[in-house]
């Protein structure tokens, strides 16, 4: 008989099993009797003797049953059936416990699914662990990520011994012109073997081959799955379709599968030879024309550290060979990092903090349910004692209590699993801000296993302590004949400790949330350096091939501004390359141009100072109302025929000319073709790259002297979105092939720029409120039990003349003592823990005194109320009844 068949027979063919046993033992008995008679006993004697020899029939049967494997399962089922009955008999307790656990487990499941999807799930590429990113860095001047030039890509690709392949990637925005559409597309420009190195196979058609990258090859495109689906309606015959781009026909050769794209989401892909910038001879020849990101795949069995050593050798050779390209003072070097690390760096601290907070909430939930359990055990004490006295083993009793806690936690886990998807949807939106892996978040096996595991661990945690404490002294429990059950000192201490721990942990969470809120308020109150109200903005992309001459482009911009400014309701309008809170600007970061001040030459091999450069049309500062501090702003006369001019921000003025007047000084960009520019004005600082960011040195240059600026900002007299259709129409009048997108108001962009701290603050706040409510319930429950247990003593006190108020005060004082103790521990813990938050805080110290003081006061008030409610029960105690209870 196979083991499973045996278990099945034992559990489900029980009558046959028992009947067989009975028959067998009866047979044995009869043979014994016959044997005895054969030896000469009388039948009665024979029967008696046989029975004596056999011993207890029922005991033998029981031992036979115990010898079966199915027996363990059977007792377990019995325990669970009993547990279900007990839990259903106490609906209040059960509901409370399940809800508490569901919230705790649900929150953890949701956050873990994000952490798993973003940080832990293996990359969806062939042997994704071998993929690495290369970063050039200038450690001495704190620039961690310098793009690569064509020369550098070649040097690292051909010089290394540890990478099996090296590919490059950069993005450009081009106009994709179809039969009757012109659309701006994010274009990834990649090496021909890019997809082969990642191990991505096309859904349709093919990806690039080496000949596509050859100079003069026919232009080809690979579409991303998303672009193909949303913009081309998943056209099944798309391969072979011809679009126009950069004034050349481009043929679609393939569509990518629905994988998340790395390093960024792009609409279309093209080989390097097709990008007009990347393939320009001047760009290729210039070692310092840097634009590309570089990936590689480690050779089999090569460790990251040996690749690092290998590439560092090349970096040292480059520094020696080209001192002008790698200045001594810069600390040039190269860093190799696993792709998975690189893609998730920004998300890491945020989600680990959230997972930590969710874990703490679950701990509090555990402590609370353990407390409820203990309170219930008090009523169960005599029953347990009786069962122990009747022969139930301690192990068996404990197992039964544990099956109750396991059932509760599994029920909690199930409900939590139903709640989790709601939270997950929100978290995914949030995660999108940090990583392209957000799409990989889903509820699948690893997550379900995690939920099951934490449910079981939770059940063990809150079940074990009460189970241990309850089955210590059955004798003592029985001795309290007929009396009220009182709490053993040890158990009382355990409950106190649980509440203390709850209070301490929820205090820590509240402090965390308090700090986040304070930091968020500071962030929101920050003056952005201009007035974002009633500012409409949109992005315009001309087809560069239609405006081959700079003068044509400038004439178009002038024409466009004239048209827009003529619309009723438009106060002023201007063009710029970037404006504060522009999501494109925030994503790509400052331009980090090198520049030179007249009279302060940069010696060879020294690092030139860095500056951010924004190109703006006349009227820009007036339109966004960035205040002019001295000198003048740009006028329409600052054009190609006039002297080159520049406006700088206050930070740059203070930084570069701390004691002198900057106006009238001359500056120029390095490497560009421009000559010296005269500083004509100083404007106030604007938070170009978002609130809370450090303001950088900024040089503004006029549009007509610099070329191109695709963002239009419009100050309106009323609700700016109402004006958007008119502005679009005006642009269409100028040139119907101008692509217009990203229509928005600066105010909403400002809000969007702080979405991640806002969501983070809300989540921490939710966790903290949840924790506080749960532990307030914990305090109330403990005090309520203490009052009902001591009703006899309290009655006696009242009979002896104690005032009710005095007794209420006494009870509240005890509750507060618990809260103060917990708060003290919480403060100590928070002083350590909040350091982890420091990187997420703006202008707020992790030990901010006001937050600590405010949260302590708030918390103690909650604790006082929580203990006052049960304390009021005291007033309902009738001394006569309480005394008679004995």
């Amino acid at each position, binding site marked *: 008989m196979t083991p499973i068949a045996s278990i099945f027979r034992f559990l489900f063919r029980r009558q046959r099993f028992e009947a*067989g*046993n009975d028959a067998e*033992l009866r047979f044995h008995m*009869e043979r014994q009797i016959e044997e005895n008679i054969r030896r000469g006993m009388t039948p009665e004697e024979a029967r008696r003797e046989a029975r004596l020899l056999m*011993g*207890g029939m029922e*005991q*033998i049967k029981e031992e036979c049953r115990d*010898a079966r494997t199915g027996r363990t399962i059977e007792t377990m089922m019995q325990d669970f059936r009993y547990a279900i009955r007990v839990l259903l008999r106490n609906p209040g307790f059960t509901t409370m416990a399940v809800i508490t656990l569901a919230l705790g487990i649900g929150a953890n499941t949701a956050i873990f699914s994000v952490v798993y999807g973003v940080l832990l799930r293996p990359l969806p590429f062939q042997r994704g662990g071998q993929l690495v990113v290369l970063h050039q860095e200038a450690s001495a001047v704190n620039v961690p990520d310098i793009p690569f030039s064509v020369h550098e890509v070649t040097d690292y690709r051909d010089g290394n011994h540890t990478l099996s392949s090296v590919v490059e990637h950069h993005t450009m925005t081009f106009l994709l012109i179809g039969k009757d559409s012109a659309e701006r597309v994010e274009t990834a420009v990649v090496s021909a073997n890019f997809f082969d190195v990642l191990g991505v196979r096309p859904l349709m058609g093919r990806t690039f081959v080496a000949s596509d990258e050859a100079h003069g090859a026919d232009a080809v495109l690979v579409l991303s799955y998303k672009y193909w689906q949303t913009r081309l309606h998943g056209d099944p015959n798309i391969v072979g379709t011809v679009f126009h781009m950069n004034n050349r026909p481009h043929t679609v050769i393939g569509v990518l599968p629905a994988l998340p794209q790395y390093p960024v989401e792009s609409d279309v892909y093209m080989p390097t030879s097709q990008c007009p910038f990347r393939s320009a001879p001047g760009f290729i020849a210039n070692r310092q024309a840097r634009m590309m990101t570089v990936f590689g795949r480690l050779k089999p069995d090569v460790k990251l550290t040996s690749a690092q050593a290998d590439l560092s050798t090349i970096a040292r050779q480059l520094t020696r060979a080209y001192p002008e390209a790698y200045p001594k003072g810069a600390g040039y070097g190269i860093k190799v990092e696993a792709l998975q690390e690189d893609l998730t760096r920004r998300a890491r601290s945020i989600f680990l903090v959230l997972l930590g907070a969710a874990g703490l909430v679950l701990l509090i939930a555990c402590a609370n349910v353990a407390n409820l359990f203990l309170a219930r055990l008090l009523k169960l004490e005599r029953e347990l004692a009786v069962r122990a006295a009747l022969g139930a083993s301690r192990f068996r009793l404990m197992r039964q209590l544990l099956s109750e806690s396991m059932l509760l936690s599994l029920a909690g886990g199930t409900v939590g699993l139903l709640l989790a998807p709601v939270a997950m949807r929100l978290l995914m939106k949030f995660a999108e801000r940090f990583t392209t892996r957000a799409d990989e978040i889903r509820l699948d096996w690893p997550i379900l296993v995690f939920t099951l595991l934490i449910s079981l661990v939770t059940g063990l945690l809150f079940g074990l302590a009460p189970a241990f404490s309850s089955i210590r002294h059955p004798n003592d429990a029985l001795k309290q004949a007929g009396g009220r059950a009182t709490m053993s000192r040890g158990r009382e201490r355990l409950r106190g400790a649980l509440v203390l721990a709850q209070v301490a942990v929820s205090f820590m969470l509240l402090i965390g949330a308090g700090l986040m809120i304070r930091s968020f308020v500071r962030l929101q109150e920050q003056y952005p350096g201009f007035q974002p109200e009633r500012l409409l903005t949109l992005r315009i992309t001309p087809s560069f091939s239609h405006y081959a001459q700079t003068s044509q482009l400038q004439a178009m911009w002038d024409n466009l501004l004239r048209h827009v400014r003529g619309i009723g309701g438009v106060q002023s309008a201007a063009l710029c390359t970037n404006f504060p809170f522009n999501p494109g600007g925030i994503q790509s970061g400052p331009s980090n141009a090198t520049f030179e001040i007249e009279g302060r030459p940069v010696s060879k091999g020294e690092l030139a100072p860095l500056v951010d450069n924004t190109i703006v049309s006349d009227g820009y500062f007036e339109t966004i109302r960035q205040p002019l501090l001295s000198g003048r702003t740009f006028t329409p006369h600052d054009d190609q025929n006039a002297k080159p001019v520049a406006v700088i921000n206050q930070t740059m003025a203070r930084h570069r000319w701390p004691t002198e007047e900057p106006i009238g000084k001359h500056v120029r960009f390095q490497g560009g073709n421009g000559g010296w520019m005269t500083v004509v004005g100083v404007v106030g600082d604007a938070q170009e790259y978002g609130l809370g960011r450090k303001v950088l040195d900024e040089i503004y240059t006029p549009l007509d002297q610099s070329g191109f600026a695709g963002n239009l900002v419009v100050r309106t007299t009323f609700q700016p979105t109402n004006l958007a259709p008119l502005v679009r129409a005006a642009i269409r009048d100028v040139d119907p092939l101008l692509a217009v997108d990203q229509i928005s108001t600066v105010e909403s962009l400002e809000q969007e720029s702080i979405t991640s701290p806002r969501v983070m603050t809300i989540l921490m706040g939710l966790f903290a409120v949840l924790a506080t409510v749960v532990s307030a319930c914990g305090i109330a429950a403990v005090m309520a039990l203490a009052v009902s247990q001591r009703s006899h003593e309290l009655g006696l006190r009242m009979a002896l003349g104690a005032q009710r108020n005095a007794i209420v005060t006494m009870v509240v004082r005890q509750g507060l003592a618990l809260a103060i103790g917990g708060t003290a521990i919480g403060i100590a813990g928070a002083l350590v823990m909040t350091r982890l938050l420091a990187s997420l805080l703006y202008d707020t110290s992790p030990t901010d005194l006001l937050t600590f003081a405010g949260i302590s006061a708030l918390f103690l008030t909650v604790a006082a109320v929580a203990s006052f409610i049960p304390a009021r029960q005291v007033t309902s105690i009738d001394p006569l009844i309480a005394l008679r209870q004995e």
Partner: protein
Amino acid sequence: MAKPKSDLLQGTLDLLVLKTLELEPMHGWGISQRIQQISESVLQVNQGSLYPALHRLEEQGWIRSSWGASENNRQARFYELTPRGRKQLADETANWERLSVAVGRILRTA
């Protein structure tokens, strides 16, 4: 019942039961009688441990049971060795012999 009796260790009982079943299938009563006879009543098999042991051995898959007619034509449950049980018996016997030689040697020399 004047002879000195020895209590059986649990593992020993399992071994004896397997050995008894080596020749032919047998019912519980038969097993207990056979052990008693061969050991000249030195070893008394207690019913309270014999039947649980049979259940245990069956659960291990070393013996299997079926109903059949006994010598006096009554229904009885017969036990027989499975192939796995035969192997187990060989292992256990070798084990036992090694052990008893070792214990004997200690008793003689020490």
